């Protein structure tokens, strides 16, 4: 049924009912077990030594004194991991620095010890010799020739000449003729917008418990948004068969995208492998903020043309996202979603993926899209205001609908934007009188959908009932009744 034409309220068997949360009792009694809420017999405490420099060559790491401390059972540096497949090379480098520390807080060594106090003392005994290098944290500065370079020789062939090697790749989307469209406009707005690198801010810091035996079989308990991702990634890094690593997802105290990768897990596994003991690692809040991924910060140029009756004649955006110390900012998705809410004849987006001396960005609620939407919608608002037009009507006039060729290529099926805008327009909140210091606005945004790996088993049980066991992460939501 086309969403755009769905105006008849429907009643459903499940949707619209209010069942009690099946995870409710566990969570209101404190019984629910999150990442840090588990212990194992003989468990050690794992801790990470982090770089105090935003950019430094690691000349030498001497762990002799730390290893000699009573209670220290293992010390790990990057050398312990050896070569890993290309697909996880940046992942392990982010978990444990190789030749260079690329941001303040970058892990350079880790210890497993009999207590937190011993572990802390051991970290102080590790001697790291750094050659401090110039650093860059601003996306526009990092793109300039002459900027300090994080990774030499890794630039993609899509990047034109004249940019720093920190520009890792360039993407382009769109159709039509921007100049022709701008010429048809009654007014063109050209603006630059910048956004900061917000952290997801989940209340639960990253935590895990790893147990690996001399037979190479391992168990890993961790808070994650995807335990199959954790298994695949860690197994590749540690050179294990995936079937040798059993990952169990704990209850998760928020993720918001930030727990779609690994930080502590491969390190805990290596510490357990070397010590022969279970190793539990829990980040402090400071470590979460220094060394786990926020969203990208961005710098975005917008050029939009509009006729005086509110029709967008052309939309152009150049998006520059820094994704921290490794390639892979969500600038591609920002470039695809920037103008996706609109039915445009002339549209073009160009995106640059840039590395800087910051923690590697992680997914965060529609990765890449909010900053692009902020820039485009701010410019659309400014144009609407300039012509004295209702901002909602302007969006309705330009809304993508069934048959619209999206700015990033595909032709949309019925996508419901017009129906949503009409519903907003009809809502009493849209016309309610405003008090002093109150405002009202409207904006459109676009996002795709992603899913993680899962596996579901279904058993007919001896009592004649059927048990469905979905191995999915109940992220901030109720688990399926057991």
């Amino acid at each position, binding site marked *: 049924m086309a969403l755009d034409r769905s105006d008849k309220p429907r009643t459903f068997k499940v949707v619209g009912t*209010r069942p*009690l*949360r099946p*995870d*409710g*009792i*566990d*969570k*209101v*009694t*404190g*019984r*629910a*077990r*999150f990442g*840090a*809420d588990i*212990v194992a017999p003989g468990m050690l405490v794992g801790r990470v030594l982090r770089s105090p420099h935003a950019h430094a060559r690691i000349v030498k790491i001497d762990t002799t004194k730390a290893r000699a401390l009573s209670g220290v059972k293992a010390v790990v540096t990057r050398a312990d991991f050896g070569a890993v497949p290309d697909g996880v090379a940046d992942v392990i480098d982010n978990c444990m620095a190789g030749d260079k520390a690329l941001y303040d807080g970058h892990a350079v060594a880790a210890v497993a010890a009999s207590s*937190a*106090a011993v572990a802390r003392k051991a970290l102080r005994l590790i001697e790291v010799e750094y050659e401090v290098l110039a650093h860059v944290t601003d996306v526009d500065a990092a793109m300039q020739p002459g900027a300090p370079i994080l990774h030499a020789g890794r630039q993609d062939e899509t990047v034109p000449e004249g940019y720093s090697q920190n520009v890792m790749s360039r993407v382009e989307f769109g159709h039509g003729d921007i100049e022709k469209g701008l010429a048809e406009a009654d007014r063109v707005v050209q603006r630059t917008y910048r956004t900061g690198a917000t952290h997801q*801010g*989940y*209340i*639960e*810091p990253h935590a895990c418990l790893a147990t690996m035996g001399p037979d190479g079989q391992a168990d890993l308990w961790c808070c994650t948004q995807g335990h199959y991702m954790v298994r695949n990634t860690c197994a590749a890094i540690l050179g294990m068969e995936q079937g040798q690593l059993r990952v169990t997802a704990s*209850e*998760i*105290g*928020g993720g*918001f995208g930030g727990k779609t990768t690994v930080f502590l897990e491969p390190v805990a596994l290596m510490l357990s492998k070397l010590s022969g003991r279970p190793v539990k690692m*829990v980040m*402090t*809040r400071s470590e979460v903020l220094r060394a786990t991924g926020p969203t990208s910060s961005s710098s975005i140029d917008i050029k939009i043309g509009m006729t005086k009756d509110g029709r967008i004649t052309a939309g152009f955006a150049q998006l520059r996202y820094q994704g921290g110390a490794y390639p892979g900012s969500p600038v591609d998705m920002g470039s695809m979603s920037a103008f996706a809410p609109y039915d445009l004849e002339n549209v073009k987006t160009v995106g640059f993926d840039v590395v800087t001396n910051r923690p590697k960005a992680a997914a965060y609620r529609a990765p890449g899209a909010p900053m692009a939407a902020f820039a485009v919608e701010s410019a659309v608002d400014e144009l609407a205001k300039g012509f004295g037009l209702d901002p909602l009507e302007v969006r309705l006039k330009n809304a993508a609908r069934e048959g619209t060729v999206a700015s990033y290529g595909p032709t949309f099926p019925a996508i419901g934007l017009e129906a949503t805008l009409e519903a907003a327009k009809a809502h009493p909140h849209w016309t309610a009188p405003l008090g002093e210091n109150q405002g009202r606005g409207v904006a459109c945004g676009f996002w795709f959908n992603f899913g993680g790996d899962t596996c579901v088993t279904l058993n007919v049980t001896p009592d004649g009932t059927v048990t469905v066991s979905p191995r999915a992460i109940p*992220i*901030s*939501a109720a688990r399926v009744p057991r």
Partner: protein
Amino acid sequence: MSQIHVTTSINGDATEFLCEAEDTLLDVLRDRLGMTGSKEGCGTGDCGACSVTVDGRLVCSCLMLGAEAEGREVTTIEGMATGDQLHPLQQKFIEMAALQCGICTPGILVAAKSLLDKNPDPTEEEVRYWLAGNLCRCTGYDKIIRAVMETAADLRRAS
């Protein structure tokens, strides 16, 4: 490395433990006594996930030393339900879906109970002010505030 011997009461039970001088009450609860219902979200008293009461006063257990529990009465989320009977706040939080991921929930429940013990008829503003030290990243607070208000109303009707 001599440890400190502490005699205290936790959820009404006489309890003894050994701790390092630097261990927080939260460290002791979680790592020495196995009571992991209290959570560490920040370790700096900002998030309230570690809320407990000490002699009836609401505190962040990450900001208090374990050794300071000597001779005190500590209550935690583990002591909130009585046998198989949930506290009315716990029941209402489930009924009104006043939780999502649940990491902040124990701290919020401990804090809310501490409020209602002192003030059975709080205004919405008083509830919001009292819970301002408990961060929830998921729910947007509205359901939490309403659940506390409704529980307070239920308890007043019952008394």
